[in-house]
């Protein structure tokens, strides 16, 4: 032994058991911080990949800017890529159509021709509209990457990219000659240069999409060809280099070229994930994230401080003894610090390694569960911020927390130790035994409160677990609002009647029910803007009929009243709560029916329905029988027929259904949009629930370990108690009372502050955006409180059983 500091590893070997719990606490804290920060990092990385894929790898779009200004902006060194982009018939309502190669047989190669018939891309298909986009090549190469599935970007103004749905329907091939017919019956021939992916919008609107070069695009709007970009309504997409100063660059461009707020559109999803969004709502999200991460750091710091503090007593005596044999206070401080760092040597790598392993496992599971959504997520990616924060928080906290015992030990008088009064070194608070509790319980409570610092740290540690859980649980509400989860009635396909006079026939519903690819089919009859008197006020309502499936789903969204009654009884209805609707259960409304004004008794109110009504009186749902009675409908049929497909349903099945629907009906395919929403919802949900599970587990481990440490530090005292006659049951009660004191005080503080934080975060993330008022999260509160109670029971049982099974002399001897 060359230096007195070599005592540290020797002492560590001797006190291995005692130190193990301290090390475990540091491991837990570092693990918590590494996992939470690392998971957040991985989440952001994966979301950025997804955002680039889904919304495009651009940062801002500029609207209504002239070419000169655009050229100046594009020449700036921070602009990596730019592209003009224009779109015709975005909503799919205008009469732009495609002509097939067969239709184009008689059309000349160059220039436009009048006449021509719409492209018959499929037998019996309605004439489907086409959405036309035009941009520079860089748009599909660098901004909307991977959109071209086959072929190349149009190399001339006469080449075109076509969406996959068009090729799938008519067997188009690269090199085929097709045409675009404009609303003024002009036909423009193009040669297919390749195929693009479908978008959820064109699938839902039942349209085709074509993509042209900027020059080709301008051919289709000859009247605007010589106009400036701002008149043509083209927008300029910009992608900046670097990820850091984007906000600054945007503000700089805005100021330098005098652009208004309306002229600049941001890619909120991408900029938000990069921490560069200037939107007020994103700023609130950053604030909430900062608060949550501050809480995580605080929890880690408190866990370490609390564990070291529990270890103070025994170590103070030990260092006091060193003072006796001649160690200077400075040497003692050095020794204590070295010991703390010695723990870090094991604990921090362990905590970081465990954290990284969990992140890898999580990423692996995510990739396995949803390759479509998480395929690009790195399985063995390292989160540098997560590891750095974990290491720094670990070392910093351990060193800071070690200062107290070091200072206390250095102040110990050698005389006090020499006189054998080592126990007197510890400051003790006299016990005032009030007879409101049994002596064992009272002493347990006293033990918890004996050291004010320890009590505060333990209370803080318990409270922070609750606060963390309650704060993070707001992100679930946020997720449920931001990413509308799939409603039970979410349809894969819809067949919509374009004209109320020609409803979708019930025979279609019957036929679809027989189709093996169809899981469920349900129709709705809609009478929009029906005159009605609600609450004495004349106005209109939207009357919608439900069948059994929809009534069953409505039960989940029932705010008051009953769903059952309206299904079984004519003349009754359900109101949909909303800004227009002041209708309550029990109200009677008058509705204009075929026989004059008729009564509908409202027997329930639901919060959601699949129909977005616009009538001032709100939406009223009734049974088909009531609907038919009211409207005097004799021709049976539906306004909308929704279809949910089985998992096995193929594209061929969808085409079959489309043909069954006939050319007159509007056919909408929502599968792609649903998949996107589902993907975002699941990925966000997995991370959010992952955070909550990690926090909950850490809370359990922390409680179990803290109580075990506390019991361990009082082992000798329990030995004395047992020697003078403390029974096993009494020992259990004593330790349980101590743990319960921490739990109750921590619970009260945690609930109070946690609810306050929950409210603050809810109002910032949800109320401010969607207007939903905050409600006490009773379910989440119950979960965390029950879990804490179970943890306390678990925490008490282990050490008590251990002490009980040890001979009293061993406990006395502190073995």
């Amino acid at each position, binding site marked *: 032994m060359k230096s007195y500091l070599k005592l540290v590893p020797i002492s560590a070997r001797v006190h291995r058991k005692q130190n193990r719990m301290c090390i475990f606490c540091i491991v837990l804290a570092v693990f918590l911080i590494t996992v939470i920060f690392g998971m957040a990092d991985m989440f952001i990385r994966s979301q950025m990949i997804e955002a680039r894929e889904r919304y495009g790898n651009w940062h801002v779009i500029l609207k209504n800017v002239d070419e000169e200004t655009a050229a100046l902006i594009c020449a700036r060194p921070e602009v990596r890529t730019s592209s003009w982009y224009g779109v015709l018939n975005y909503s799919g309502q205008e009469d732009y159509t495609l002509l097939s190669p067969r239709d184009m047989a008689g059309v000349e190669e160059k220039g436009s021709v009048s006449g021509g018939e719409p492209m018959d891309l499929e037998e019996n298909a309605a004439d489907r509209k086409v959405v036309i986009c035009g941009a520079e090549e860089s748009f599909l190469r660098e901004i909307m990457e991977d959109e071209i599935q086959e072929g190349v970007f149009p190399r001339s103004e006469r080449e075109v990219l076509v969406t996959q749905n068009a090729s799938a329907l008519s067997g188009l091939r690269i090199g085929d000659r097709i045409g675009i017919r404009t609303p003024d019956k002009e036909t423009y021939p193009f040669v297919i240069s390749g195929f693009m992916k479908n978008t959820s919008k064109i699938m839902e609107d039942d349209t085709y999409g074509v993509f042209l070069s900027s020059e080709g695009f301008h051919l289709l709007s000859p009247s605007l060809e010589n106009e400036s970009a701002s008149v043509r309504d083209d927008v300029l997409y910009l992608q900046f280099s670097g990820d850091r100063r984007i906000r600054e660059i945007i503000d700089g461009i805005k100021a330098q070229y005098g652009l208004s707020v309306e002229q600049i559109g941001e890619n909120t999803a991408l900029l938000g994930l990069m921490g560069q969004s200037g939107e007020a709502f994103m700023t609130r999200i950053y604030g909430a994230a900062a608060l949550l991460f501050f809480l995580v750091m605080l929890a880690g710091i408190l866990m370490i401080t609390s564990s070291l503090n529990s270890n103070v007593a025994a170590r103070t005596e030990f260092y006091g003894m060193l003072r006796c044999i001649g160690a200077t206070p400075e040497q003692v401080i050095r020794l204590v610090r070295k010991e703390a760092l010695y723990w870090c040597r094991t604990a921090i790598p362990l905590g970081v390694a465990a954290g990284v392993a969990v992140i890898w496992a999580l990423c692996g599971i995510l990739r396995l569960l949803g390759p479509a959504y998480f395929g690009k997520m790195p399985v063995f990616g390292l989160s540098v911020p997560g590891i750095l924060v974990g290491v720094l928080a670990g070392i910093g906290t351990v060193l800071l927390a070690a200062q107290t015992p070091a200072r206390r030990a250095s102040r110990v008088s050698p005389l006090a130790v020499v006189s054998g009064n080592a126990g*007197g070194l510890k400051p003790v608070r006299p016990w005032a035994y009030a007879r409101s509790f049994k002596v064992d319980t009272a002493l347990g409570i006293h033990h918890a409160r004996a050291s004010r610092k320890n009590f505060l740290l333990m209370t803080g540690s318990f409270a922070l677990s609750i606060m963390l859980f309650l704060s993070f649980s707001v992100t679930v509400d946020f997720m449920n609002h931001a990413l509308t989860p799939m409603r039970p009635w979410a349809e894969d396909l819809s067949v919509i009647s374009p004209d109320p006079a020609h409803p979708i026939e019930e025979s279609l519903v019957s036929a679809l029910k027989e189709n093996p690819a169809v899981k469920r089919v349900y129709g709705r009859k809609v009478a929009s803007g029906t005159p009605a008197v609600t609450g004495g006020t004349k106005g209109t309502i939207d009357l919608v009929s439900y069948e059994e499936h929809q009534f069953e789903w409505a039960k989940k969204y029932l705010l008051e009243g009953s769903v059952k009654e309206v299904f079984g009884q004519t003349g009754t209805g359900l109101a949909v709560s909303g800004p227009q609707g002041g209708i309550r259960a029990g109200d009677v409304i008058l509705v204009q029916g075929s026989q004059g004004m008729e009564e509908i008794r409202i027997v329930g109110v639901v919060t959601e329905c699949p129909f977005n009504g616009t009538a001032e009186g709100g939406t009223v749902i009734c049974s088909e029988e009531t609907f038919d009675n009211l409207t005097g409908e004799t021709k049976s049929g539906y306004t909308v027929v929704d279809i949910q497909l089985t998992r096995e349903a193929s594209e061929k099945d969808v085409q079959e259904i489309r043909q069954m629907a006939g050319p007159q009906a509007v056919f909408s395919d929502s599968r792609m949009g649903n998949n996107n929403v589902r993907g975002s919802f699941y990925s966000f949900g997995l991370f959010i629930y992952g955070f909550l599970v990690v926090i909950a587990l850490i809370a359990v481990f922390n409680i179990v370990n803290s109580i075990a440490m506390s019991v361990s530090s009082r082992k000798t005292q329990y030995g004395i108690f047992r020697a003078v006659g403390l029974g096993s049951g009494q020992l259990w009660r004593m330790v349980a009372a101590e743990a319960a004191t921490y739990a109750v005080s921590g619970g009260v503080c945690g609930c109070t502050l946690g609810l306050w934080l929950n409210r603050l975060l809810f109002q910032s993330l949800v109320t401010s955006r969607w207007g939903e008022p905050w409600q006490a999260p009773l379910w989440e509160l119950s979960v965390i409180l029950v879990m804490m109670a179970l943890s306390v029971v678990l925490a008490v049982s282990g050490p008590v059983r251990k002490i009980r099974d040890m001979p009293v002399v061993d406990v006395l001897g502190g073995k």
Partner: protein
Amino acid sequence: MEILRAENLGKIYGKGEAKVEALKKVSFSLERGEFTVVTGESGSGKSTLLNCLGALDAPTSGKVYVDGQDLFAMREEERTIFRRRHIGFIFQAFQLVPELDVEQNIVFPLLLDYRKPDTEALEEILEVLGLKDRRRHLPGQLSGGQQQRVAIGRALITKPKMVLADEPTGNLDSKNSQDVMELLMRASRHYQQTILMITHNMNLAASADRVLRVADGILTDLGGKADEKLS
């Protein structure tokens, strides 16, 4: 009247080469009011014997009867309650609870038994131990001798049938040691209690009724003033 009887008491620590036989077939008995001293070298097995007699540790073999009851035939909880009520302990290192004051430390075994301390008995003990003006002091505020007096008070408060003292004077100077001995004797006479005390001090052993010697785990009765009962 026989208060304590040990029959073929044996205690073995460890296994194989590390095996140590701390007690070897120890048998003896103590009468009510008898003041007995156990002597022996360090590591001879004295403390092991005391711990086994007081049910702080379980013997490997043999039986211990206190007031006719087989200690190790009882269930753990039953034994604890029995020990709480009938056996008092005094330790060399005092083993007081640092946050309890003098009075609380003394009455603590009664509190554990959910009994209300008898004020008169407490006053009497405080008086006898000379701790009346120290009753609100914490152990850390007392001298070694005073702390050991508190420990004696704690051992006597339940009026146990037997008091076991493991070198109660080991941490004290000669003056304090003499005081503690006198106190124990007075208590023994006053409450008719059987006292079994471990000591190295042969001067102290001289004043005992009986002296037992432990060497290599074997107990030898050295006799003493056996007939001269304390009264």
